[in-house]
């Protein structure tokens, strides 16, 4: 993006922030700027990552929210059972289309109750409705119900979709720090992982979509899509050789092997 435009965006953001009354400061600034947002929390058990996702429609499905997070913040994911279930998130979970491959471990689906708490979703992510300001969470673990499955850390939309301000936001909200690039992160060693609040603010282009990494570790690497692996070629060559061998055999003994 061109530099003057970026600078103008920063100035506009600062102006907007200073003009916003204190009472409405709790609402996500990003929503006011660029339309509907929703929060997506991914808890792998090792680290918890929260994404502020820009919605491309007034309401989306829970699955589409993950796809949007993948597009916007490079969350890696894999769906299974015909694209109806979540198998893999942030590099955790079974690789293929069978989401129960790592049973009893699987991705539990939680929906925010609006106050930072979570309720176990009774519906599949393909049929749920996510609106502006909603929060959804996925946790990796065992347990077939909300009573036994690990619960994600308490998070509200205000804590996920923070405004991009150069000064740290007081109270329990995660502290905000400016990073020069989407990849760069600042770690604060010494704090316990659960309270280790780090904010990754993107460049002005994506300033409205900050990503809060709540625990140590970076987000999963972007999915790489190279050419076909060697196994594919070996398998295809083997199949072709077998087919040709069968063909020659049929031509040599058209009436069958025994007469």
């Amino acid at each position, binding site marked *: 993006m061109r530099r003057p435009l970026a600078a103008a965006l920063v100035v506009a953001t600062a102006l907007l922030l200073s003009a916003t009354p204190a009472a409405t400061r709790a609402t996500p600034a990003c929503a006011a700027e660029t339309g509907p947002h929703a929060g997506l929390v991914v808890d792998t058990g090792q680290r918890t990552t929260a994404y502020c996702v820009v919605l491309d429609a007034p309401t989306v499905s829970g699955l589409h929210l993950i796809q949007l997070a993948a597009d916007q913040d490079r969350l890696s994911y894999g769906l299974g059972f015909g694209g109806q279930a979540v198998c893999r998130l942030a590099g955790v979970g079974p690789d293929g*289309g069978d989401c129960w491959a790592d049973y009893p471990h699987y991705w539990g689906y939680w929906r925010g109750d609006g106050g930072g708490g979570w309720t176990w979703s009774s519906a599949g992510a393909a049929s749920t409705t996510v609106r502006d300001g909603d929060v959804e969470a996925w946790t990796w673990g065992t347990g077939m119900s909300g009573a036994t499955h690990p619960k994600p850390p308490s998070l509200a939309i205000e804590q996920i979709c923070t405004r991009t301000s150069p000064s740290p936001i007081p109270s329990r909200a995660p502290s905000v720090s400016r990073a020069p690039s989407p990849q760069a992160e600042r770690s604060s060693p010494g704090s316990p992982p659960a309270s280790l609040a780090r904010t990754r603010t993107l460049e002005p282009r994506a300033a409205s979509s900050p990503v809060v990494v709540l625990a140590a570790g970076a987000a999963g690497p972007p999915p790489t899509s190279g050419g076909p692996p060697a196994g594919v070629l070996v398998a295809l060559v083997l199949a072709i050789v077998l087919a040709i061998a069968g063909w020659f055999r049929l031509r040599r003994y058209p009436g069958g092997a025994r007469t």
Partner: protein
Amino acid sequence: MRGTDLHPAAWIVWASCAGLIAFVTTDPLYLVLIVAVSWFVYAAHHTRAPSARSFRVFLIAGAVALVLRTSLALLGWIVPSIGVVSSGSVAFAFLEGLRLAAILVVFGTFNAVTDPFGLVRMTPRRFHEPALAAALALSIAPRTIASAGDVREAQRLRGLPVTGIRSLPALAVPVLERGMEEASTLAESMDARGHGRGRRSRYRAQRWSAPAVAVAATAVMAAAFFLVASLGGWGGLHPATVPIAWPQADPILLVAIALLATPGIVPTRGTA
């Protein structure tokens, strides 16, 4: 007796193991390989008997199943309430259809290379009647295919139209009639041979030859590898479809499928 010189039980073991492998995976590489292996085995062992046509018929049935399963996934375009159509859901449906097609081709190969009544002869006396019922059920498809082919040929010789929907009733009636006739002939012949009365004697029992043992053993080995992979969750038996990724081919499992081609390599009476 028509059929191969391999013990029928070896063919049962081979077909069940190949079918089991096709059942536990949706990886297109393994499935295509199973179809190729089936074709190779069919080419080596098919007979002159009319039931050898069942390979082609089951190949067509598999293709129909594949197209049907995939188009069912595409139905969401016309009826949006069924579900959202995405490249992932279509790919998933395609792989499921491919699995079904591979199972059908394996069954077609089994029908083309073996004689179901040979199986009845070798069952223990206690299980003779259920085995007879199973053999009759198994042979319905190849016998119907064979008699349909005969009827069509006869109609073609008489200058009757044999293609199109209008010719179907003219085809169905003689095929059904012939099925009834065959059933009553079989019942009469069984009655005449004293079926179900007293001890059953065995005339020249077929022996397990070394090739038959090799065929059964390698098939069981191949299926065991896939079972372990399925239970252990390795080998990439179910490739990811959302987002679409390249299917994996584990070298061990590739070797396992290659083991299924043993019937095509072992020496047979006609070629050796």
